[in-house]
């Protein structure tokens, strides 16, 4: 379980990014965070991951305050965070290497992940030789290699075209169903937030505060896209963000 308690963040240059943000994400839940650009969504994820210390308030994961990156939390950065100098295999393996897994264990895990993401035959390719969707899948595999209990994703699909985007959303739903990992996903796309988030946290403009938390129990199913409830929720979130219908 992740719990943000009155999290505030003011950068050294005086920019107030977040102000007293409080909400919690249950174990095994998918939560999407949405808000206008520049509302501190990414900052919030960095704080959750332990890479950034909030200037006010605290974040707890399973009851313990977060002070540094945790082994059971994976962060997928915007634009995938892959290393251009590592091939697919080494990009997936790097997290396990850092955490000191045995070489044969890494080999086994990486091979099965490459098959799972459908990139068999591309082990020795470099990120720049892959399409956006393929890079995204490598980033997923790298995160999954560590068998995290929490996955944090910053605009994971924002640079994909509409078709690959839907495919990757389905892929994410499938991963979530198989692993029941807790997922926190930042997005500025209303449809994506509604499709994926069983809980949708709507943030205000900078400094970001929680405007509303929308319950969305029907989410995280691929069929949801065609259901009345889905459209209803999209309208609701659109209104909350302040866009006209």
């Amino acid at each position: 379980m992740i719990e943000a308690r009155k999290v505030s963040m003011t950068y050294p240059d005086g920019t107030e990014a977040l102000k007293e943000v409080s909400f919690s994400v249950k174990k095994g839940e998918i939560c999407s965070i949405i808000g206008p650009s520049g509302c501190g969504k990414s900052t919030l994820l960095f704080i959750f991951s332990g890479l950034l210390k909030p200037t006010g308030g605290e974040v707890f994961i399973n009851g313990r305050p977060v002070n540094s990156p945790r082994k059971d939390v994976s962060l997928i950065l915007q634009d995938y965070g892959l290393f251009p100098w590592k091939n697919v295999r080494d990009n997936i393996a790097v997290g396990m290497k850092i955490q000191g897994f045995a070489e044969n264990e890494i080999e086994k895990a990486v091979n099965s992940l490459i098959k799972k993401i459908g990139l068999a035959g591309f082990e020795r390719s470099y990120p720049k030789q892959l399409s956006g969707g393929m890079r995204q899948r490598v980033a997923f595999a790298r995160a999954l290699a560590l068998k995290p209990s929490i996955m944090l994703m910053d605009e994971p699909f924002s640079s994909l075209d509409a078709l690959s985007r839907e495919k990757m959303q389905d892929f994410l739903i499938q991963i979530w169903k198989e692993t029941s990992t807790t997922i926190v996903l930042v997005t500025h796309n209303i449809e994506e937030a509604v499709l994926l988030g069983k809980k949708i946290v709507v943030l205000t403009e900078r400094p970001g505060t929680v405007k509303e938390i929308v319950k969305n129990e029907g989410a995280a199913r691929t069929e949801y896209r065609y259901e009345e409830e889905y459209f209803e929720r999209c309208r609701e979130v659109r209104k909350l963000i302040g866009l006209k219908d």
Partner: protein
Amino acid sequence: MVGRLNGGLSGLSGLGRLNGLNGLNGLKIRGCIFAIVVILVLWAVGASLSSSPALPSPLIVVISFISDLPELIPHMLVSAYRVIYSILLALSFAIPIGLISYKEKIDSIVSPFIYLLYPIPHIVLLPIIILLFGIGDASKIFLISMIVFFQILVTARDAARNVSDYYILSLKSLGASELDVYRHVIFPATLPKILTAMRISIGTAIAVLFFAESFATSSGLGYFILDSWSRADYNSLYSGIISMALLGFSLYLFVEFLEKKFCKWV
């Protein structure tokens, strides 16, 4: 299924580009042969036009090079030892100092030293270096490595400063230690620039080697060249020049080999 096929095809074309390197090598080899032929022809024409003993024809030079070989090899080995030792020494200091400069705090200490010491023409320090280190190998190696050190340090430092925080954050989110950041991000990200700096510094190192071997020694290709010159033995003079060129060329090829092996991603 169609999507997967498409993905596969676009990926394959990417691989094709990599394999295309072989084709490029073929082109390169043909280009090299062409360049060698042109240079030799121009040289031969120049030699026959000038008909001066200071510009013998390529054929004579090749023959004298082969006959001089037994005498040349010890000099070549000494020069190779001096220049390789110097470059390795320079690298072993320049790379670590350059890489740790990715940190603002360390850079604020390192860069003033670079600004003050780099622009000095270090070669003028030779007399002082000889006074301090004597006339043996130590002074030659110190002079070459000092000059190469700055060339590589400046490049490594600039490259490390330019590594995006994004990659460092990406690695740290996986629980990386400071050492992991160097191993997985800073070093591989800067390696292409460091190898380019090495290529440039090979030329510098050999030029300085010639200068350092030009007096107070009786070994090395620099000595061999000057000795042949003073004896007006022009054929041996050319043998020495060719040996020095070959030394530089083989070091250059070695760095290119390293680039091919470790910087495929560029």
